[in-house]
């Protein structure tokens, strides 16, 4: 049994909680918190005047290199990066090699997460066998094994018929379908957002409409089936308008975005910078601003890291041949806080988007501060500065699109089930 841990002088901040005081961890759970809870004998005391104690972050979208792409990232290295980034729960995408389309693989991922001791891995199940977009996987068995929702990862479910069946069938098991919203035939061969910049660089474009068209279709299919659709990494204002209207109409539609889409725009590509090649592509400044507005007004339900580990060789290629995706675990909190500091999003809202927001979508235990809840916690200094440097990030994947970005907000400690796993 681990000893008690007492936090003193911290701002305790979570969905519905905002106070300066103390928090006590006992037996891996939050035993008590308040202005003063008293120090039990033998308790480890963490004095962190001015720091913020929040629930451990819940990252609802990250690709792990395991199984199949261990050269990019292992679960151990992802767990180390997650801990350094204050993340204690992570939903793992199923488009691995093999794809997570079998109940045994769901068990495997959950177990591998437990073995890290620092990270709860919530596996997504594949919508289709091998994430190939053809026949439906065994959604019921996957769900029974613990799949939190279904998705084909970075691949859109292109067929309207298949999407209709998946929404309908998954709904019977109380699970949502997470869609990569990009109309595949419009996006085919595209490598950057369709714009004057892509035209100048001679890069085939992906129109913003490719996202909106898929979002419009799937909202209509969710309405038709009564199923729940969740759109990952929303990058355009047009799609957010559709989602806003869908929500107003009472359709079961939710969405998340990722830091690159509210912090960067297409100009990050510069002269063919492949670290800024993402899927969906970085969009125009007007879309970036629309995403910020969607975070502030509640249209967007969660911020996910959208971590896509890549090896240097995946990126050291001509732009069109380079693999899309950016590392995101270590920068999730810092980049989000940048938009708190600049006044775009209130701090409380930012914390909700990183904790209880995604936790609700995943039915996860974490993401909240309450007596008896698991002591998954993230302690950070909101004003301390650091600079993102590819090559010096925690974990294996160094393909950050934020290389050189100065950030305010440093994680000084992460606790998983009461154990300090970082800092």
């Amino acid at each position, binding site marked *: 049994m681990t000893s008690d841990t007492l936090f003193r002088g911290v701002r305790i901040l979570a969905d519905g909680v905002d106070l300066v005081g103390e928090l006590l961890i006992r037996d891996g759970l939050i035993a008590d918190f308040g202005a003063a809870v008293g120090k039990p004998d033998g308790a480890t005391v963490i004095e962190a005047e001015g720091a913020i104690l929040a629930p451990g972050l819940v990252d609802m979208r990250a690709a792990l290199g395991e199984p199949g792409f261990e050269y990019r990232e292992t679960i151990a290295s992802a767990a180390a990066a997650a801990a350094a980034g204050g993340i204690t729960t992570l939903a793992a995408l199923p488009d691995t090699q093999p794809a997570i389309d079998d109940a045994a693989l769901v068990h495997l991922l959950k177990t591998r997460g437990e073995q890290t001791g620092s990270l709860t891995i919530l596996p997504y199940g594949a919508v289709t066998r091998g994430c190939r977009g053809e026949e439906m996987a065994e959604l019921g068995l996957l769900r029974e094994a613990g799949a939190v929702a279904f998705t084909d990862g970075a691949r859109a479910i292109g067929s309207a018929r298949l999407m209709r069946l998946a929404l309908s069938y998954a709904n019977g098991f109380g699970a949502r379908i997470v869609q990569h919203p990009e109309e595949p035939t419009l996006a085919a061969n595209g490598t950057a957002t*369709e*714009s*004057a910049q*892509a*035209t*100048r*660089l*001679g*890069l*085939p*474009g992906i*129109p913003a409409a490719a996202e909106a068209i898929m979002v419009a279709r799937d909202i209509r299919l969710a309405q038709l089936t009564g199923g729940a659709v969740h759109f990952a990494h929303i990058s355009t204002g047009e799609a957010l308008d559709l989602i806003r209207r869908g929500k107003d109409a009472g359709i079961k539609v939710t969405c998340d975005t990722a830091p690159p889409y509210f912090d960067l725009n297409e100009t990050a590509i510069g*002269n*063919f910078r492949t670290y800024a090649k993402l899927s969906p592509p970085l969009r125009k400044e007007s879309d970036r601003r629309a995403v910020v507005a969607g975070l502030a007004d509640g249209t967007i339900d969660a911020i996910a890291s959208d971590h896509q580990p890549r090896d240097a*060789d995946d990126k*050291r*290629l*001509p*732009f*069109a*041949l*380079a693999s899309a995706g950016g590392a995101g675990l270590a920068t999730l909190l810092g980049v989000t806080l940048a938009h708190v500091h600049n006044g775009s999003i209130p701090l409380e809202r930012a914390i909700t988007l990183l904790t209880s927001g995604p936790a609700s979508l995943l039915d996860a235990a974490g993401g909240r501060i309450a007596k008896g809840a698991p002591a998954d916690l993230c302690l950070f200094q909101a004003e301390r500065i650091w600079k993102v440097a590819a090559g010096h990030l925690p974990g294996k994947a160094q393909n950050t699109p934020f290389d050189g970005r100065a950030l305010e907000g440093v994680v000084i400690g992460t606790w998983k089930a009461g154990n300090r796993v970082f800092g």
Partner: protein
Amino acid sequence: MGRSMPHPVDLWPVLLQRRGVFYAQKHLLAIEGLHPGEIGHLLDLAESYVLLNRSGKTQRDLLRGRTLINLFFEDSTRTRTSFELAGKRLGADVINMSVSTSSVNKGETLLDTATTLNAMQCDLLVVRHDQSGAPNLLAQKVDAAVINAGDGTHEHPTQALLDALTIRRRKGRIAGLTIAICGDIAHSRVARSNIHLLTTMGCEVRVVGPPTLIPAETADLGVTVFHDMAKGLAGADVVMMLRLQRERMNKGQIPSAREYFRFWGLDHQKLAHAQDDALIMHPGPMNRGVEIDSAVADDPDRSVIREQVEMGVAVRMAVLDTLSRGPGRNDL
């Protein structure tokens, strides 16, 4: 003039270099981003090489001991030959390397090649690649000055320079001319380099083509977009035709070659909308009967297609000369 005195034609390149006009880049990767002064400098120097070449003289001491490697990842005869000739006329050791891109791991080849080139002490590297931005990537890894000889659908800077030189010699100026660039803009690196160069030098640039072959937001590049040849060519001083690749028809961007020719192929009827003395240009190789009618292409009064080839060698000599003295290599 005394026999010991060099011919003025021989001196011109040297004098221009001493004039203090700078080309401030180590490489020539794109026209975009170059200043009018830099473009003007390259054109002036190229002009002098036209005279030198026509005089039958050479300047074989200029790049003596320098190694020029033509690294072509994509088939090309005329551009490679043109660079080869330019390098040899300046006395460089010229090596041609053709690398097949059919191998699965194209990028691996690119960076492995960079390592090899560094070991070979290459001074000037001419690169053609089927991927946009490949020369930029290579430029980060090699010590040599890199010259983009065409990358994917991005840029083909020496083509734009030779086109500009051809225009300037025929029209006496570049600024103020109305130039129509016609055809498959979307897949044309020649179009992009020409748009940047001609807008930078003060032309009114129009692009004309079917909507499916005009890329997104082309107007933001400072040009006017037309879909009708008659309107696009009205009053133009120069008509630049682009090559239409057959695969565009396979990909459904164009229904057929004959429909394309009917609406966007250059014939005398469409050409009548342009100025009476309008020049006709084409980067070659031409698809006769698809984007250009033979009667127009071979019209000796209007077509400067043959002259473009001559200008190509001079422009490439000017580029090699300039980059061999560039900021990265001040040892001359």
